[in-house]
């Protein structure tokens, strides 16, 4: 099946954005003719994505990360320095049109913050002196590509005794060869035995998903890799793509072989544009080796190829159905649950979507066999898991842990500094207090709350950190990343953010806390996709787990009279008419 033209609109938008620094009115008109859309529809797509602009963004477009980890690593200092050195203010371009400064949520470099993207090339471990050097080089006309940093992989830990699963040598084609001898059903059997489950955080059994797609009778099926890890604090997929692109590609090929698909697409987040070459090179190697193309890996009649599609700055596109919409060249709005992607996914065809880690893990399981894989981990949660550790610790980076490791052990490994509050699985996940450090990290017991599941992000905050500020940062993140399609997420996050500001300003009382909890629960129950359903998770947990802390932040004099109401601020504007 030929993909419709609109599926490539994002590529064109990217080209225009990169070559001109913005998308002009003429571009919009031209694109609307080319794709036979109304202009407002093209505008809708452009305005949805953070990295597409309708106004000039300067010769050098700088995106500074404003995630909470960046914040504790000196974000505000960097922000000031950038404004001073470039002469631009954030959200705009300087008068000469040279520098455009913009804020952006987590760019997947939490282990080397503060960090920024300049013309989409990464610059890490920033400090005031480094900023001065960079800006003066740019002013001299140096190409940012030549002075950017190659982010370190920071693989800090793998299971001792050379038992790493993900980071061993890999011979291209070896897993596919074994898959061919197992046959599609054998592959499913192995994945089932190894209890591989979706590593994006939802933990849906991979074999079930693949099996459901395999059973679909459609002639056209798709395998899609979700490389849009946007959860603040996570960067494991960045390291995997940088070091293990071939196991990712091979995982997709094995999936295609299993379900009977011919097309694979990797949806790479816009923030990782600098990693695109790595993927393209690996794909090319696979094609040359006959592992992609016709009769892949000498399997008669099995044709499969992969292309890379760039995202353009939208957290919600990590939600699988929003990702599908984005792939189709539309606004990344999550679909309703009327159909599942394995029934009607990309272009309404059966589609398997897994994330980078899941495909890499599938390759390794098929390569070494389920039995070997299962020698690690704990019963019910076998194998290993990659965690992105960041925040207040001496050794931020990637940790490949055996399932079943406790939070305490991990904190020791990364040399956490006075840990107090830990955000597991990112803002949409769960926060835990240091009192819970003996909880194991596993796939088990989600409901009993004994173990803790981790999607990948593990952010550590010390006692000195302002908990309300952390939660406010999360809330602002969700408010701007909501796609806007459903009421509870669009309006709810906005409302919660305003309420948290009250709390931050010391105006809240106990009734406000109760309301926050109740409103958070309503958003959880009624939102359309995972974003709205999980946006208030941390807040709700935090109010229980850090009850005393919250009590200290309340307005203690509240007696029905809101005496802290700032009349001076409210009449300030009127005062200028004083004669």
């Amino acid at each position, binding site marked *: 099946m030929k993909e419709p033209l609109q599926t490539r609109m994002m590529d064109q938008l990217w080209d225009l954005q990169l070559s001109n620094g913005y998308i002009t009115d003429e571009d919009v008109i031209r694109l609307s003719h080319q794709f036979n859309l109304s202009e407002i529809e093209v505008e809708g797509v452009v305005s949805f994505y953070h990295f597409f602009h309708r106004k000039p963004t300067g010769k050098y477009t700088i995106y500074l990360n404003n995630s909470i980890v960046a914040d504790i690593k000196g974000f505000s200092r960097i922000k000031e320095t950038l404004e001073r050195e470039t002469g631009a203010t954030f959200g705009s371009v300087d008068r000469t049109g040279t520098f455009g400064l913009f804020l952006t949520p987590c760019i997947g470099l939490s282990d080397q913050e503060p960090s920024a993207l300049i013309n989409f090339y990464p610059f890490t471990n920033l400090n005031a002196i480094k900023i001065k050097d960079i800006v003066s080089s740019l002013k001299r006309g140096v190409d940012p590509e030549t002075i950017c940093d190659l982010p370190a992989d920071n693989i800090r830990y793998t299971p001792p005794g050379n038992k790493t699963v993900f980071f061993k040598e890999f011979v291209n084609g070896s897993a596919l060869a074994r898959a061919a001898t197992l046959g599609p059903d054998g592959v499913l059997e192995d994945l089932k035995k190894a209890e591989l489950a979706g590593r994006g955080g939802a933990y849906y059994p991979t074999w079930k998903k693949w099996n459901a797609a395999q059973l679909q009778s459609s002639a056209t099926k798709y395998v899609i890799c979700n490389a849009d890890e946007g959860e603040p604090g996570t960067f494991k997929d960045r390291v995997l793509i940088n070091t293990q692109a071939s196991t990712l590609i091979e995982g997709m090929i094995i999936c295609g072989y299993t379900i009977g698909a011919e097309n694979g697409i990797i949806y790479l987040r816009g923030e990782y544009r600098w990693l695109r070459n790595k993927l393209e090179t690996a794909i090319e190697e696979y094609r040359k080796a006959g592992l992609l193309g016709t009769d892949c890996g000498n399997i008669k009649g099995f044709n499969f190829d992969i292309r890379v599609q760039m995202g353009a700055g939208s957290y919600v596109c990590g939600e699988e159905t929003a990702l599908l919409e984005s792939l189709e060249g539309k606004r990344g709005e999550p679909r309703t649950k009327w159909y599942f992607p394995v029934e009607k996914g990309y272009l309404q065809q059966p589609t398997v979507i897994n994330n980078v880690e899941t495909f890499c893990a599938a390759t390794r399981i098929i390569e070494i066999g389920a039995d070997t894989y299962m020698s690690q981990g704990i019963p019910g949660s076998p194998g290993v898991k990659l965690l992105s550790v960041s925040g207040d610790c001496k050794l931020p980076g990637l940790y490949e842990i055996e399932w079943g490791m406790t939070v305490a052990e991990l904190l020791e490994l990364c040399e956490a500094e006075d840990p107090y509050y830990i955000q597991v699985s990112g803002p949409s996940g769960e926060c835990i207090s240091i009192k819970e450090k003996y909880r194991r990290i596993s796939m088990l017991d989600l409901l009993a709350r004994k173990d803790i599941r981790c999607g990948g992000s593990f952010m550590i905050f010390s006692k000195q950190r302002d908990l309300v500020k952390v939660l406010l940062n999360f809330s602002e993140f969700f408010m701007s990343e909501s*796609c*806007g399609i459903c*009421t509870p997420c669009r309006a709810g996050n906005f409302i919660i953010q305003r*309420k948290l500001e009250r709390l931050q300003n010391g105006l809240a009382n106990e009734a406000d806390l109760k309301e926050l909890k109740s409103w958070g629960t309503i958003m959880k129950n009624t939102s*359309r996709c995972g974003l709205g359903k999980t946006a208030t998770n941390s807040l709700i947990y935090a109010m229980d787990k850090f009850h005393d802390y919250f009590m200290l932040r309340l307005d203690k004099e509240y007696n*029905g009279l809101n005496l802290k109401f700032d009349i001076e601020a409210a009449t300030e504007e*009127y005062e200028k008419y004083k004669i």
Partner: protein
Amino acid sequence: MSNLVNITIDGKAIQAEEGKNLMLVARENGIFIPSLCFYEHIEPPLGTCRVCTCKINGKYSPACTEKITEGLTVEVNTEELVDSRKALVEMMFAEGNHICPACEKSGHCDLQHMGYELGISSTRFQHLFKDRAIDYKPSRMVMEHNRCIKCLRCVVDVKTEDGKKVFNYQDRGNETYVGIDYEQEEKLSEEQVMNAMRICPTGAIIVRGVSLAKPFGDRKYDMDSVQKDYSKRKQGHRSRPTMMEKKIVATVSLAGCFGCHMSLLDIDTDLLDVVELISFDKSPLTDFKNFTSRCHIGIIEGGVCNSENIETLRKFREHCDILVSLGECSIWGGLPTMRNSIPLSECLEEAYLNSPTSEPGANIVPYHEDLPKILDRVYACSEIVRIDYFIPGCPPDANHIWKAVKNILWGEEYSILYSEFKYD
């Protein structure tokens, strides 16, 4: 004929066609599931407003995106679900800038209607007063972005003959709005233009030159609730012990129009009861300027727009056991909040310096130490002091006020008729 299967809705056994939309099945069986985006001609369903959220087979899920399957168990009217639904509609009111008295669609508006059906008397959320534009550019329509609830109906349903979209979402997050394509709008037929206004559940899409004004009683939503058991629904407050001592009441009108006070007097012969049962302290009715005693109840009309309002309101809180916000302006700011999304200086300069009626050469915005200071925006009373009860309306119906006040003072059970709760 498709397969009939058995399902249960709120304990009621129902046979329904397999694969059919749950909303339609509920409707056919006389079960009211509130919704604002659902439009039966659109498939797949929109699922944007989330008001129809039910508990389906134990999981929270909107009814409009659910297909009938054998054994489906649906809970519609649990206390929690009813409250969530109310909250969602309240969110829409808090998020948009909905000023019903100034809206063409009042009486024909699905959102307003849903507010009544769900018995919303005040929004639990502080209104956000986001500055939004009104788009007058389309040749036949006006897009009133203040009123849009982003239901997606127009985006999906209104298309030109060659299949192009006329409306589409723009931006994202709390900035999301529905944009209109001027070029494509030109291509729509008269009928399509009218259809766009009709399917819009609020007054966001208005067709130029078309009046929706109809006498009360002839409008789409008037005297009757769509719920047969509306009067049986729980209303009002919990009972308090009965004490027939004379109660002391204070009233005030802050940033309001005195319309609520007028309405108060509309209780006709019940006024005789009022005199028997209560006495007034500080109030425009007595013209007492200061409190002379502690009051059982303080009734506040109007929102807070200047420094004097704040002082007065605080005095009321200090002198009254119970404070009641009477009417929309008091509850969330109401009509005066039309200035909230515009900078104060712009308002004042327009009014005193630049308007066609200002004296030639006028260069003064009134400011004197004896004049109250105007606040940056109009605040709800509950933002300044704790308010105990809210009586909605613009103005509230006289019987509604009297019943609610009696209930608060003496704990008398009461129920409000649908017509008493309607006030637009």
